[in-house]
């Protein structure tokens, strides 16, 4: 089969999957913007996400904080045993009470080594680029990767 045709077919298949996911996945998973726009719908609803702890105020066994997920904020309350600190990157599991405008966090895990993950990933990226470009070069005229030793 013609390579151009195969590329077109695969690209169309991938795009179809992405559009299907955009519609169906969005119906099943809501962003914080969606949650805020429809408080009635998100009353007493389970919630799970990863994000950053901001504006932490702790006292009386409760921690009130702003939970920031990819730039979107939601107020959160946590009374569990794990001590959180300002700026912690956490994954939370809880329940939304959006009529009162907050997320009740029932369990959480702090990614204490998230900076190490990022640092190792940067090293991995450099290694990947070195390994890949050692063997391959991009031919702009044919728009394809060619062996350096060819």
């Amino acid at each position, binding site marked *: 089969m013609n390579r151009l045709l195969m590329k077109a077919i695969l690209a169309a298949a991938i795009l179809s999957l992405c559009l299907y996911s955009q519609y169906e996945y969005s119906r099943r998973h809501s962003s914080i913007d969606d949650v805020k726009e429809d408080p009635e719908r998100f009353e007493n609803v389970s919630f799970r996400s990863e994000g950053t702890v901001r504006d932490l105020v702790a006292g009386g066994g409760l921690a009130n904080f702003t939970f920031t997920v990819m730039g979107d904020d939601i107020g959160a309350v946590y009374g569990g045993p794990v001590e959180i600190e300002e700026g912690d990157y956490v*994954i939370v599991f809880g329940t939304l009470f959006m009529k009162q405008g907050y997320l009740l966090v029932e369990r959480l895990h702090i990614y204490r080594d998230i900076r190490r993950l990022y640092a190792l990933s940067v090293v991995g990226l450099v290694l*990947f680029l070195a390994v890949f470009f050692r063997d391959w070069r991009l031919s702009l005229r044919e728009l394809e990767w060619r062996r350096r030793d*060819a």
Partner: protein
Amino acid sequence: MPDWLTYVISAWVLCEVAYLAGFRDARRYIGAAALGVVLPDLVKLFFLMKTLTDVDLIAFSVPFATPVGAMLVVGLFSLFFQRGETRGVLPFMVAGTAVHLVWDLTLHPYGGGTLLYFPLSFQQYSLGLIWSDSILPLLIIGLCALPLGIRRLASEGLPWVSRSGGGL
């Protein structure tokens, strides 16, 4: 997800084991396997885009980290290699992507899990063994890579030194 260093070392281990198993071209395709092993993380670019620009295409990008979607992406990328190389590149890219998905499957379920049967199902699966920021995957793959590296050094010497020890 585990860190990218774990992924890239996994690609090297994969090719080294394939070489020892008799696939004599395996070492020529470490770059292709490394590309395959990082491709499912295309989805992270959309996370970054959401964070930086507030354009939310995360749901759109979900297929890149699923088995069916990732394999289609690998198939498409393999067609951008020169004629005659696609057949060599494709199996190593597929194997690299499979390794990535297996690593992701080991993550703790709080991390969401892998949509194994997408597009037939949106159910997420996870073995729940490792947190994303754990050093464990790197230790595990490091322990696998160490004997392979020692064996290669012992049999072939340093890559930039000839076997007779005569220098570069």
